[in-house]
C-alpha cells in the first residue's frame, strides 16, 4: 500500500464523526475507526445510522481532567544466580548421589593414559574420596554401604560453598601434583564473593548491591516522597519520548539504558483532595495519572544534579525494600509490575 492512500485514509477517518465515547484514547480511536478491506462491506450499513446520532460532548465539566505523567521504571537485572532454598540444595545433592548409584562406572581409561602424572594423581584421589565425582562427598556408590546415601543432620556437603571449595581444592591438588616445578604452589582463583562491599556497607546508591536481585531506581521528591522518576507529558510527544526525556531530565544522561518496547508496563492514579486550578489553562486538575515505561540500565549511574524537579536523593532498591520507602497506596499500584527476583 502506498503512503499516499494511507494518508488519505487517515484524513478520512479523522473527518468521519467519531462513534466512540471519550473514554478511549486518541490513538485507540484511530485504530478502532480504521477499516480493513474485509470489514468494509460489513461496516457500510452501520455508517449511515451513526452519522445521524449526535456526537457525544466532551466538556471539561463532566469528565475530570488529569495530568498525564510519563514514569520510568529503571531496573538493573539480577547479575548472579539466586540463593537456593535448603530443600533445593538437599534435593539436588540427593539426586547427585542417586545418579552416582545408577550411572555406568567412570571410564577412566578414556580420560587418563596409563603412566602419566595425571593417572598417578587420579589414583591417589580416588583412594581418598572413593568416587570419581568431586562434589558428592566421601561416598562410594558401588560399595556395600551404598544404601547409606542420605546426608546426616548438620552436614555441609550439600552447601554450594562446600561444593565450590571441593572443586577448587581438587583443581589445586591436580595442578600441584602434575606440574614439573615442585617449588611453586599453584593457586586456583576462588570465585568472587556473592556479597559485595556495597552490601556490607549498606550503600543504597551503588549498583553493585544485591547482585542476585533486580534493583529499581527510586528518587525522592523535594517534598520527601519516594517514587519512580516521572514528569508530565509535554505537547503531543509520545509516551516513549516523554519517558526518555524524563530519564534524561531527572537521572541525568550519564547512563546507558534500553527502553523495553513502546507500551507502559503499569500505571498509578493519584486523585487530589480538591481539584486545583491550573494557572496557564484555567482547567481544574483532579489529579495525576502516571504511566510507567520499563527500562533496563546497562552501564553508568544516576546523577540528580541537573534534575528539573529539584530531587533530593536516589536509591537502588529491590522489590522487598520498596514498601519501606513509598506510600502504601503507591506500592499497591506498582507492585505487580516489579519482578519477584
Amino acid at each position, binding site marked *: 500500500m502506498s503512503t499516499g492512500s494511507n494518508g488519505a485514509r487517515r484524513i478520512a477517518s479523522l473527518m468521519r464523526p467519531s462513534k466512540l465515547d471519550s473514554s478511549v484514547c486518541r490513538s485507540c480511536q484511530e485504530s478502532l475507526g480504521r477499516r480493513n478491506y474485509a470489514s468494509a462491506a460489513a461496516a457500510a450499513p452501520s455508517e449511515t445510522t451513526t452519522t445521524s446520532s449526535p456526537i457525544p460532548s466532551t466538556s471539561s465539566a463532566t469528565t475530570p481532567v488529569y495530568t498525564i505523567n510519563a514514569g520510568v521504571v529503571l531496573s538493573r*537485572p539480577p547479575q548472579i*544466580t539466586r540463593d537456593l532454598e535448603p530443600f533445593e540444595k538437599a534435593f539436588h545433592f540427593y539426586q547427585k548421589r542417586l545418579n552416582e548409584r545408577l550411572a555406568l562406572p567412570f571410564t577412566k581409561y*578414556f580420560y587418563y593414559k596409563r603412566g602419566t602424572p595425571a593417572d598417578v594423581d587420579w589414583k591417589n584421589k580416588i583412594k581418598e574420596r572413593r568416587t570419581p565425582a568431586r562434589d558428592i562427598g566421601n561416598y562410594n556408590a558401588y560399595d556395600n554401604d551404598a544404601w547409606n546415601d542420605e546426608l546426616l543432620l548438620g552436614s555441609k556437603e550439600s552447601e554450594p560453598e562446600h561444593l565450590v571449595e571441593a572443586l577448587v581444592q581438587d583443581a589445586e591438588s591436580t595442578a600441584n601434583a602434575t606440574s614439573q616445578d615442585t617449588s611453586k604452589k599453584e593457586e586456583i582463583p576462588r570465585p568472587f564473593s556473592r556479597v559485595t562491599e556495597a552490601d556490607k556497607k549498606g550503600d543504597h546508591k551503588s549498583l553493585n548491591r544485591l547482585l542476585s536481585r*533486580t534493583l529499581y531506581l527510586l528518587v525522592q521528591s523535594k517534598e520527601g516522597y519516594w517514587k519512580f522518576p516521572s514528569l508530565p507529558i509535554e505537547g503531543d510527544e509520545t509516551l516513549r519520548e516523554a519517558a526518555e526525556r524524563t530519564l534524561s531530565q531527572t537521572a541525568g544522561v550519564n547512563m546507558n539504558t534500553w527502553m523495553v518496547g513502546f507500551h507502559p508496563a503499569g500505571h498509578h492514579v493519584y486523585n487530589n483532595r480538591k481539584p486545583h486550578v491550573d494557572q496557564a489553562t484555567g482547567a481544574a486538575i483532579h489529579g495525576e495519572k502516571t504511566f510507567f515505561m520499563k527500562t533496563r540500565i546497562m552501564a553508568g549511574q544516576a546523577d540528580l544534579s541537573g534534575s528539573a524537579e529539584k530531587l533530593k536523593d536516589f536509591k537502588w532498591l529491590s522489590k522487598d525494600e520498596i514498601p519501606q520507602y513509598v506510600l502504601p497506596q503507591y506500592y499497591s499500584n506498582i507492585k505487580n509490575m516489579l519482578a519477584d527476583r
Partner: protein
Amino acid sequence: MAVRESSRYLARAVPRAFVPSARQQVFLGRRNVSDEAPSRRLSDQLDELETASSLTTPVPETAAKSFDPVTRAKGRKTQLPRSRYQFRSPKYDRGPLHPHQPPPPSDPSSRLFVPGPFSLPRAQQTYNSTVASDILTLCYVHTPPGFKPPPKAPRLREWDDSSPYHKNRPLRGPRGGDVLRLLRKPIRFNNIPEVERITIHSYVKGAAQENSGWLHVAGMAVQAVSNVRVETFKSKASVATWSIAPGRDTVAVKAEMHGETMYHFLGKLIDVVLPRIKDWPGVKGSSGDSSGNITFGLEPEHVALFPEIEVNYDMYPPKMIPGCHITLHTTAKSDKDARLLLSAMGIPFYGKIVQ
C-alpha cells in the same frame, strides 16, 4: 498525602459497612445430624493431631550425634533378608490387570527412573527473571476496548463447487503453496516463547569413506559436549562422490537435550564457546525453518573450544573432531519471535534479518 488518602478511603468505606448486603450472611461452619455420629465426631479427630509440627521442634544435639546408620546396621546380629528392604520393579509390563505393577517412573526404584535435576542452571534463571518479562513487554499489542480483529479468510479454502467432483473433497491448501504455516497467537503471559530443546547433529562423511573410527570419535565428542547419549543414523541420500549409499552407511550422530542439560549447554555455548570463535559474525539472519527453530553450524575447530573437549583435547584424534549443526527449538511460532528470544539470551545474528 498518606493521611489524606486514608481519611478519604475511610469516609468511603464506613457507610458501605452499614448497607444491607444482597447476599445473606451464612454461618459457614454448618453442622449436620450425621456429624454427631461417633465415627465422625470432630473432637476425636482433633485430639489425634499433634499440636506442634515435627519440623519446628529442634532435634536434641545428642540424638543427632549418636545417629549412625552404618554401625547400627552392622551391629545387628542377623541381617535382614534382601526382600525386606529392597524392592525390585518387575522386569516386564504384564498389563494393567497383573497384580505386580511397576512403580511410576518418578520413583527411584523404577527401572525407568532418571535422576535429576542436579542444579538450577544460570541461563534458565536469566530467562525466568529477565528475558521472559522483557519479551512480554516488548510483544504487547494494545487493543482498545471494543476492538474486534478484522475477520480473516479461512486458512484452508473451500472448493467453489463449479464441478460435481468437488463434493466431499478435502479443503484446499492456502494460496501460493501447500505449506500451512503455524498460527501465531498474540504473546500473553502463558505463551511467552522459550527454548524447548536443542539438537546437535553431526554428519560424519569419513565414517562411510574410511572407517567407523570417525563415527566413534564424533559420538564421544558430541556426548561429552551435550551430556546425553547420542543416536546414530544411516544415510538417507546417496552421495556418489563420497561413495555413500542410502540405508547402508551409518553417517550421522545426533544428541537431543531438554531441560536442565539444555540450559547448561546453552549457557556454555553463549558464554564460553561463541565469544572465543575468531571472526565469527554470528548466526545468519535468514536461518530458521519459519516456525521458530533456528539452526547454525560449528566448524570442527569451534567444537574443540567446548570446555569438555578442551580439558582432554589430547584424547581425541585431532583430525577427527567433528563439526556439527546446532538447532535451537523454541516454542515461538515464527522465526521473528525465536530470534527475539535467542538474541535476548545472547546469541548474535548478522546479515539481513528475514522474518
